[in-house]
């Protein structure tokens, strides 16, 4: 009884955290802020950190099954790889001294690549969210 209760509590805990992250993501989108690509990546990583902390607890938990843990690990690998790629092409896209966003094509600022990779990174993060919400 105690073990099934433990699994149930852990499951609810993980799901409520995932729901919180989803809400936080939606709230962030709703603000419609004008961010530079570099700022956007930092914002994405900060939000992804919340999911990663939940994922760390999930992979440590004995009540989460092996398949779910594998799905969580795989989703994290893909998400981190796409965020790394996004970082490579956006780390040079900063603001000028007057705060205007500079989007000139350079080695480490490739606006066209950013447009392609950003949705991929978001989708990969979504996969981790889905993996965390899987039933036991």
């Amino acid at each position: 009884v105690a073990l099934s209760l433990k699994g149930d509590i852990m499951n609810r805990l993980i799901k409520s955290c995932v729901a919180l992250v989803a809400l936080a993501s939606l709230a962030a989108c709703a603000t419609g802020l004008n961010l530079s690509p570099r700022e956007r990546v930092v914002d994405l990583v900060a939000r992804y950190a919340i999911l990663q902390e939940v994922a760390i607890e999930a992979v440590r938990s004995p009540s989460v099954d092996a398949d779910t843990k594998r799905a969580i690990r795989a989703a994290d690998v893909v998400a981190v790889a796409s965020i790394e790629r996004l970082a490579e092409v956006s780390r040079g896209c900063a603001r000028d001294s007057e705060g205007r966003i500079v989007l000139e094509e350079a080695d480490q600022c490739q606006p066209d690549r950013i447009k392609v990779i950003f949705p991929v990174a978001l989708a990969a993060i979504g996969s981790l969210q889905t993996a965390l919400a899987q039933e036991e």
Partner: protein
Amino acid sequence: MEASAALKILAVIAQGFALGEKLVPLFDRVKKLYEDYQNPDRPDVTLASFDAELEAMRKRSAEIQNSGT
């Protein structure tokens, strides 16, 4: 209820609080980022803090890949 069962439930509650303690600063961090973004005088994100965020992400990822295996 058995004492061991009660202890296990207490352990889960403690685990929940530990996770909460880790998450609250992260939610605060996101909130702070948005406050910075809405401040017209804020400086741009520096490359140093950009790289520090990425490094922290890599560390958490390593923990996900290596924990509980």
